[in-house]
């Protein structure tokens, strides 16, 4: 049996006093702590994401602008100095993974923000308004869903170099909001028939208020989980594009590392370049694992039924 946790800003929570809010907040974080402690793997997920966040924010600061190279240690085997060996130029592979995290994570974050903001906006509005707006927005959503993402990106890459994480994230985000819009619309259609929304309508509250203060907070956990999952999707998509070699060269980009390890170093043929291949793969795997574990924890935090088990 878990202590009842009230979602901040959830129905009923919007009209509490300042002291009650603070109590609610304290209870919420206690609940979070309890959920994380119950399964150590969830704590591991948080630690992994924290490490990646530090890598993204401060990783490049740990190294000089030009990473050192050792001309006599091309594709060197793993050692204490080079835990994942070196690349074709004799550069430490771990340093490449760490300094390359920023672009990958930033792209993932931008993609997720754009996809979530657009998807949530469209889904909420369509689901709440219904009628013609719903039909129009859902047809646009269908079109978005029908766009073959990878082929389009391959074509776009011939005219657009995607040199910044923002450009890459923008395109991936614009391509990836359709699924979120559909899910949010379905949730909205379900919630709008609930009593507290009926009551808000009966009180004559504005549409803006109902969507912003009543519906959105109820869906915040769902949206947050979708956002984390969108980050993994974005990481796969951009790494895939870099792996295919259609995007600009950055030696520390994880996708470029995979490409050069396979096609330049023969990592799938011999073992010399294998650590160079495995390091970015491991980074992607860990990032995905961290996100999955955190989503698992969020699921329990925000789902009362799971919490009571």
């Amino acid at each position, binding site marked *: 049996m878990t202590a009842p946790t009230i979602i901040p800003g959830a129905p009923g929570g919007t009209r509490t006093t300042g002291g009650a809010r603070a109590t609610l907040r304290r209870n919420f974080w206690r609940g979070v702590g309890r959920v994380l402690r119950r399964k150590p793997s969830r704590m591991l997920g948080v630690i992994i994401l924290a490490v990646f966040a530090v890598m993204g924010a401060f990783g490049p600061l740990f190294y000089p*602008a*030009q990473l050192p*190279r050792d*001309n006599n240690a*091309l*594709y060197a085997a793993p050692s204490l100095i080079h835990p994942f060996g070196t690349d*074709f*130029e004799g550069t430490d592979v771990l340093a490449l993974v760490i300094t390359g995290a920023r672009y990958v994570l930033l792209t993932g974050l931008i993609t997720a923000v754009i996809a979530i903001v657009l998807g949530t906006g469209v889904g909420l509005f369509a689901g709440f308004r219904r009628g013609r707006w719903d039909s129009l927005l859902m047809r646009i959503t269908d079109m978005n869903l029908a766009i073959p993402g990878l082929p389009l990106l*391959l074509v776009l*890459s*011939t005219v657009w*170099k995607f040199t910044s994480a923002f450009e890459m994230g923008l395109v991936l985000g614009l391509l990836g909001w359709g699924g979120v819009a559909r899910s949010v619309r379905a949730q909205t259609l379900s919630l709008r028939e609930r009593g507290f929304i009926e009551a808000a309508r009966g009180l004559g509250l504005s549409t803006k208020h109902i969507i912003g203060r009543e519906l959105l907070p109820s869906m915040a956990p769902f949206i947050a989980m979708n956002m984390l999952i969108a980050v993994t999707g974005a990481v796969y998509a951009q790494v895939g594009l870099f792996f295919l*070699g*259609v*995007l*600009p*060269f950055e*030696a520390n980009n994880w996708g470029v590392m995979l*490409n*050069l390890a*396979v*096609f*330049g*170093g*023969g990592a*799938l*043929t*011999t*073992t*010399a*370049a294998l650590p160079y291949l495995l390091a970015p793969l491991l980074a992607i795997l860990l990032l995905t694992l961290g996100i999955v574990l955190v989503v698992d924890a969020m699921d329990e935090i925000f789902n009362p039924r799971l919490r009571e088990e």
Partner: protein
Amino acid sequence: MKRLAVVAVLLALTSATACGGGGGSAADREGLYTTIDALKPGLDANAPINPYNPKGNAFLGYNAQWLGWTKNDLTDSDQFYPGVAESWKIAPHQSSITINLRPNGKWSDGAPITAEDVKFSIGLAYTQGGTAYALDPSAAGTASDIKIVNEHTIKITQSAKNPSNSFVQGVMQTFIVPEHVWAGALPADFWAKLKLAQSTAPGADAARAEITSLADKVIAFAPPKDVSAGPFTLARMNPGEALLVKNKNFYNAANVAPDKVKILNYTGNEQIWNYLISGQLDNAPFTALPADVMERIVQTSGNGVVQGYSPVGNALAFNQSKKPYDNVHVRRALAYLIDRKQVTKVASPEGGVAALTTSGMHQKAAEAWLGARFAALNPYRVDPAQAAKELEAAGMRKIDGKWTMPDGTPWKLTINVPASFSDWVAGAKAVTSQLNDAGIDAQVVTTADYPLYLQEIAAGKYDIGFWLVALGPSPYNIFQRLYGASNGWQLFGGRLKHVAPGKEGNWMGGPETIEVKGVGKVDPGELAVKLNSAPEAEQKKIIGILAEAANQDLPVIQMWDYVNTQFVNTTRFTGFPPNNSDTLRLTSGVWIQLGLIKRKQA
């Protein structure tokens, strides 16, 4: 009981099939030669058996034949091994070539190979254009008259208006196909139209357009069956491999060792590496590969490496219409900063040797043409102090350890390379790392694929890009890479003109004349064109001037010279060409038809 017997028979059949599957039994492999075709990555099972079709299932040296096979020579591009032609006689100044066919030569269907077949094949070649078969009457090195002397002799005369040293090579590299199979590919009045097209008479333009319009028809032509003059004919195609069987009517069939040839499909180098590691290939032509993979390949029983001269070099080419690369001091500074040995070690450790200097030529060809003069060229050894002097001479400024433009604005040096060339990508990265160390903000930008790269570089979109140079052995072709159309010199109707940078494919944007120390002002484009028709002694003189011009002016900085590194496996066959053989740039099919390859005796 009956059911049990059926099950037993089925089991026996299954196990027999399993034993015979996979790579094929020893008996199946007996006499089977396995290779890949460097010209055909990605086999297309539905493509026609047509040598003019880029995806066609006509494999050079196997079931597709030229008149002769060019020997790999440092300076002479007019030496050949016999192909469909048994012998040939070249008139002085390449004014004509007389081809003699074998009196008993036969197609694989038993029909005789005649001079009519050669004439018909030349007709097909005219639809595709090319050096010896240009429709423009004033084009350099074009055939003006084709005369059948007798059933097995044909004489091809070069137009006297604008003769070229590449005429003979153009003729010898003509695909020969059987007229009785291909008859429908050319209209009945073709030769009359060709005569009109090669004249200046009224209607010539229309005739030229009509012949050119036949190109697509010829490329799409699909012979109902493979009738070949080569040592093999195509027996079966599937997306994984092409199977060719021995042509019993081939003139040298008695010395063709393999009964069958299997050409395996591949889409990337890694596939070739894996074929080699598993010992499947009897030969693989040049394939870029890292040192560790090379080590692994030679560990396979029977595998060996054969190396030879490859008239191809790799260079960093400048767009001189972009600042600061218009300044020779900047280009020289970069040459002094780049450690070419280190770049080659990173980029092409097994398939290249660092360029000794920039001369426009492969170092072996340069030594052969220039002798001691080659050693006198500036080698541009790594010298950061000299590089700094050159940059200062160009007015560049060093602020906070970073070189900037003369006005103090940032200098971002960008090298473009196609993403699919892993050795170029690694080489470009090595160059930028060295330049960054020296305080030049340098980066690599990749382009999705090679055709797009060529399109963008020609459009002048890049400041600096990797560029193939030294494409010999013809000196004319070698220097066209530096002082040809991509640097503004256009040859139209026998007249040379220099177009402005950024126009008509002039992306290198170099000046029309260059001051060469000890020579004076020269027009390198004009000199390069003269190489096409000059006698050997004059060629030597011109090459000397052009090499000095390239060395001093540096339109490119040569990075590495390619080495023709091939793989052979002596488990099943022997007799492969040795290192530096003049057959090394020819296909296995040619080695086989010349009788070089022998079955290994048990």
